[in-house]
């Protein structure tokens, strides 16, 4: 089955291949996430903080290892020449990598996101925290998308590590900056959920950067004649 010149069946197989290759690690991360949620659910201050921290660390490391596993390692282990032997275009491989990368990250990401929403809205935590948490989570998603796009587009392992480390390092300053936004600072400890224009513009910026990263990488791959052609 083809769509706009792409072999959908082959793309599906490549996505399933990446999913299956990464499944073992994903199972480990899910176990870690369950532990983190159980610690948060225990309700004591120390366990809540430990669980919350574990949740964020696992989310960041899930992304880091997912990219390493399905993109970087594939180059190092010379799996690409094998993929080349399949009847696929460079763009098909790119699309499959993108879908697989997003799928693998979205499973734990959505677990964490939905848990946070439930936690904030259903417990005694201030509801105003929700807006701040959403900004931080979408920044993490943005970081992952950018890192994934860079990993797909840039073959240098050094650059990939640099970009991922840089994005991870930016998380903490972003959290401080987002927390200092006036509508966040005013409402984060109250039960008011306020989507102010400045919050919405930050969200807009996050969406824009994510879309831009995906579009640029896509454009970059449409210019490739073969899978191994470098820029």
């Amino acid at each position, binding site marked *: 089955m083809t769509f706009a010149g792409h072999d959908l069946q082959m793309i599906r197989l490549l996505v399933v291949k990446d999913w299956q290759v990464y*499944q*073992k690690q*994903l*199972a*480990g991360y*899910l*176990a870690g996430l*369950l*532990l983190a*949620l*159980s*610690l*948060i*659910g*225990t*309700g004591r201050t120390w*366990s809540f903080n430990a669980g919350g921290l574990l949740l964020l660390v696992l989310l960041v490391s899930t992304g880091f290892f997912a990219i390493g596993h399905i993109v970087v390692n594939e180059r190092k282990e010379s799996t690409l020449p094998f993929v080349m032997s399949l009847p696929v275009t460079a763009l098909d491989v790119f699309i499959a990598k993108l879908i697989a990368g997003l799928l693998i990250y979205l499973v734990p990401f959505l677990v964490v996101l939905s*848990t946070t929403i*439930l*936690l904030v809205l*259903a*417990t005694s935590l201030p509801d105003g925290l929700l807006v701040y948490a959403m900004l931080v989570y979408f920044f993490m998603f943005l970081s992952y998308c950018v890192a994934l796009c860079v990993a797909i587009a840039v073959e240098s392992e050094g650059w990939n590590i640099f970009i991922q480390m840089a994005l991870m390092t930016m998380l903490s300053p972003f959290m401080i900056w987002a927390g200092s936004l006036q509508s966040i600072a005013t409402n984060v400890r109250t039960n008011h959920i306020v989507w102010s224009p400045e919050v919405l513009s930050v969200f807009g910026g996050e969406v824009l950067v994510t879309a831009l990263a995906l579009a640029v990488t896509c454009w970059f791959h449409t210019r490739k004649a073969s899978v191994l052609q470098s820029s």
Partner: protein
Amino acid sequence: MIENDRVHYLDNLRALALLAGVLFHAALAYSPLMHNFWLTADRDKSVWVDVAAWFLHLFRMPLFFAIAGFFAARLVNQRGVGGMLNNRMARVLLPLVLFWPLVTAAIGWLAKRAASTVRNAPPLLELLRQNDLPSLPLSLAHLWFLGYLLLFYLLIWIAATAEWRVAASWTLAATPARLLGLAPLLLAPALASVSAPTPAPEGPLPQLWAVVFYGVFFFFGYALHWRPLLLSQFRPLSAALGIASLAAHTAFLWLLKVQSRHTGAHLLEAVLQAYVSVWMTVWCLQAGQAWLNARLGWLRYLSDGSYWTYLVHLPVVFAIQFQLLDWDAGWPIKWAISVLVTLTACLASYHFAVRGTALGRVLNGRPGRREGMAVTSQGRRS
């Protein structure tokens, strides 16, 4: 005895455990220990309710989880991990999604109505009446066990995918002496981390102590499927387990009565609870295998209606007990009325409105497959 692919003693045990669940929840209204925390707490209460109800509480849910674990292993054996998950999504997740909002809305509505109509309001209802408690906290109510079952099914997938066989090999290598003597000591820290008697982990997120405590019973049941002869090894100890459990429970109640604030006392309470839970669960399984391993007509029917009954019984119990709060009668009469009316209402509604309908098929599976494949739908009923 396995007939038509049904394991009769587990079917029958499940039906009795269901009955125990209704008895237990109806009894909490007359428990001095729960007087300040239960919506239908009655003026008339008795320490004998605590003695019996909390003894039941210590092994009722552990037994449920052990049975659920057994049937999860059976499903994995028959359909693989993926097949087991698909089956459980339909039989556990779907009922949770369908019934949780209905049950919590019904309980919330009944409580608000009772707060404005009942003259002899218990402390919790009084708080609602005075608006000190603006709304009931988000809770899975008595359906919390469905959430934990889903979590344990997910853990089976995780263990199978990540190829973690360490825990399984420990369980499979365990001897009866180790299981009965050492396993409770491993459970004690989990119980020591919460108040005694153990509360229901009904919050929206899993609680670590409950994951550990009920998880051990679930995976004990899981291992039991692969070691069918294990249970018979406990048979010589059966009488001793029952007597020792009663003695440990007596000591536990004495410690509760003394109300020592010493950490050592709380740890000892946890140890005693853990021993009673393990010993009585094993005793029930062993007794079930010895005495209930046959097709018993009334228990079989109760078994079929048990899932529906358990899902909907709590709002029914509350509806009846709110009416009984202002009635001047002794607790045994009120308790008997609430149990009998609840069971009659639940089983009658199952017979006339659920069995044979689409909902019945969701809960019990397709009628044609109920006999042959019933084993696949047992675990969810705990």
